[in-house]
């Protein structure tokens, strides 16, 4: 029997080897095969905030400026100078920057890219509202002039998530912001291989041989993006067990997310390493509808928040406490604006009795809470179940309605009454860099119909956000961030449910795997 297996194995190996010798080029290409968190379908990083589109854009495009691991803005494609009055930002492009089609990167390309981004990004719109001019000042330089100082300008341009600001050739950047760009030509460290792209299945990148890395050590998205492999292939695998099997069988090199419950399969597995690469992780949040009872009443919102326990939610969501953190800071633990004011109840197991008392004081009349529960997104199925139980214990009437995520995202845009197809409460997740800055945190503005889903009207927080936008010193910013933290906890602009961390796993043939909010493929080497 053993001989039969051995013979079969040799036969297949021989056949495969024979084929490989006929198809492999004369030199050995180094290819990293990775399974990312989802399949790439939308390519334009200005149209969507989808994380996989952002990850793809970081491979192909480069950024003017970039945030490093210390949250400091660093030059990337361009050096920058800020005038003493804080009104003029002058950018000077590095020498040798080229698009993947061979053209030189010019100020006109960058200006068009910034203008397109300003139409879609919240930070970009804030800059645009204060902009006096944006024009070339030389062959390699251009200047952004503001009507009033806006200290957040460089941070908005350097933020890695949400809608990051990528530079594109002018002809692409002139595409209307609501229409996708027709081709993927950037100046980044990798070139997009259009012929091999299969939406939702596979995306292939080749090393950009003309790329000139920025000076300085690699740090998150700043510094040298030194590519040390010939190709990178992202293969989509919808089944987590399959991707794990593929890693164990040596068919892939890198797996961005390993479900925590499957992690024990990798423990002690020779040739496989695993670790949390995004140290800030993600946050889970609950958002209420401010337009309708019962959550139009701040006391009832507070009662709901008091009923919840981060630990209960995170235990149901993640399970293993090594991979979650009870954290009361709405801007995330481990960030410059980490404050925990007002979070005592939710971080210490909830306060059902307190919630009951507050509900009674608020005169809650039993109006059902329409809670939307997505059933097809594994990272969002636990929160509504745990929350519904806690809310019921506190005395809420909960109408939990299961639906697929697409139905939820459509329904959450509806301002109809909850009994008429609207809603009261839903949950979603963000990565910490998306909520870590008050001006980048889309859930904070209280601009009524123009606010994010839930539509709070909250002049007090709008004033604090304006103060933050005008504060140039970190100390002042921190003081305002702390006030925002306390206000959000008191007013319950949203419910902060703590932090969680996704482990990644990779073959030990890879070296240079670095921590970052999401995977970067520059600096990686593959041996053997």
């Amino acid at each position: 029997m053993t001989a039969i297996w051995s013979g079969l194995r040799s036969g297949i190996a021989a056949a495969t080897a024979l084929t490989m010798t006929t198809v492999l080029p004369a030199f050995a290409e180094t290819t990293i095969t990775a399974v990312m968190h989802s399949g790439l379908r939308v390519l334009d990083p200005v149209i969507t905030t989808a994380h996989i589109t952002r990850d793809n854009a970081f491979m192909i495009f480069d950024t003017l400026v970039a945030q490093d691991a210390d949250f400091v803005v660093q030059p990337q494609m361009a050096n920058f100078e800020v005038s003493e009055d804080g009104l003029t930002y002058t950018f000077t492009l590095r020498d040798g920057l080229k698009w993947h089609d061979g053209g030189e990167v010019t100020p006109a390309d960058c200006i068009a890219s910034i203008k397109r981004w300003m139409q879609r990004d919240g930070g970009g719109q804030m800059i645009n509202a204060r902009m006096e001019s944006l024009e070339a000042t030389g062959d390699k330089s251009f200047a952004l002039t503001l009507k009033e100082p806006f200290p957040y300008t460089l941070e908005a341009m350097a933020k890695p998530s949400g809608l990051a600001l990528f530079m594109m050739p002018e002809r692409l950047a002139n595409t209307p912001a609501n229409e996708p760009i027709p081709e993927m030509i950037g100046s980044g460290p990798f070139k997009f291989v259009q012929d091999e792209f299969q939406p939702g299945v596979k995306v292939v990148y080749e090393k950009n041989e003309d790329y000139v890395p920025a000076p300085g050590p690699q740090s998150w998205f700043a510094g040298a993006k030194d590519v040390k492999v010939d190709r990178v292939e992202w293969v989509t695998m919808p089944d987590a067990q399959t991707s794990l099997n593929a890693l164990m069988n040596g068919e892939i090199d890198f797996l961005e997310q390993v479900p925590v419950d499957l992690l024990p399969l990798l423990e002690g597995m020779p040739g496989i390493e695993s670790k949390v690469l995004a140290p800030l992780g993600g946050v889970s949040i609950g958002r209420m509808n401010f337009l309708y009872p019962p959550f139009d009443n701040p006391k009832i919102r507070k009662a709901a928040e008091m009923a919840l326990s981060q630990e209960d939610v995170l235990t149901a969501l993640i399970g293993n406490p090594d991979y979650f953190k009870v954290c009361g800071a709405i801007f995330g633990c481990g960030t410059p604006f980490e404050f925990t004011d007002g979070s005592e109840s939710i971080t210490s197991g909830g306060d059902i009795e307190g919630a009951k008392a507050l509900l009674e004081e608020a005169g809650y009349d039993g109006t059902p809470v329409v809670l939307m529960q997505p059933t097809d997104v594994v990272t969002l199925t636990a929160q509504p179940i745990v929350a519904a139980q806690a809310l019921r214990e506190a005395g809420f009437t909960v109408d939990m309605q299961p639906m697929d995520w697409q139905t939820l995202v459509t329904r959450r845009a509806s301002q109809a009454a909850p009994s008429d197809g609207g809603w009261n409460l839903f949950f979603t997740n963000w990565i910490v860099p998306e909520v870590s800055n008050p001006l980048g945190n889309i859930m904070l503005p209280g601009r009524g119909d123009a606010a994010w889903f839930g539509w709070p009207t909250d002049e007090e927080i709008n004033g604090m956000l304006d103060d933050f936008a005008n504060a140039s010193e970190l100390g002042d910013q921190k003081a305002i961030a702390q006030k925002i933290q306390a206000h959000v906890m008191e007013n319950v602009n949203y419910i902060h449910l703590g932090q969680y961390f996704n482990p990644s796993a990779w073959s030990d043939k890879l070296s240079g795997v670095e921590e970052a909010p999401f995977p970067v493929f520059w600096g990686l080497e593959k041996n053997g």
Partner: protein
Amino acid sequence: MPVYFLRRVLAAIPVMLVVAVFVFLLLRLTPGDPAAVLAGDMATPEQLEKIRDSLGLNDPLYVQFFRWMGELLTGDFGTSLISNQPVIDLVADRMWPTIWIALITITLSVIVAVPMGVVAAWKHRSWIDHLVMTFSVLGFSIPVFVIGYLLIKLFALDLGLLPVQGYVAPSEDFPGFAARAVLPALTLASIYIALIARMTRASLLDVLGEDYVRTARAKGLTETRVLFRHALRNAAVPVMTVIGTGFALLISGVVVTESVYNIPGLGRLTVDSIFARDYPVIQALILLTSGIYVLVNLLIDLSYSFLDPRIRY
């Protein structure tokens, strides 16, 4: 026969038209918004509205329908709302993995299941019959993903004989294609072998009790000749029906098996498109599936007249 064929093909046109109208309306009445998928979680209501406008989703339904029908009549299946790729390219890329796996599965199933069913009927109520029936019940009862994972564990992870997952076109790398096709085909075949073997056995048992079989035996024909020349051919009509519909089912998507083995086939494309509310892709896939069902049914009907001389069109 040619008149019958032509009549059936013409009859398919109103069927496809009804399917087109039904699918179009059903998708538009189902909650979901491709613009929300496209824009992501951070889009504001105003931005979503602009994207809906640019995709033509705010046009009246009848305008959208006639625009789609107009494109279809010129052979244009439209463009994916999400990936912005031509639908015809997306479907064509995903069709071949599915077709190959379906062909291998059905061929393997017929080769194994028909003899199993014949032997079970021939040796009715013997241990071999019980064995075949036990296998059938098991094959039909165990979920495909369980069989899939067990086969992966044994043949890929433990024995290291075959890859865990993936697909390569046979034209690019035939040994690679074959190595990757074995486990998915075996997994799917476990169901179809069970189904076809059971149907072959039942159908053959019916036929073996017919008068003409008794007559054939009375004429002194050998049991083998009775079985294969007189009984099996007449028992083949319901078996062909099962094989045909099984093939159509395989083509229309086997999403669990495609997910377990990471095969980029039509099943996954269908599910992904539904989750993303990618209307043009879903519409094209359902039309394609309907067309395949119509075609397969026609071929099955035509095959009856070859198998059973009593059936004439």
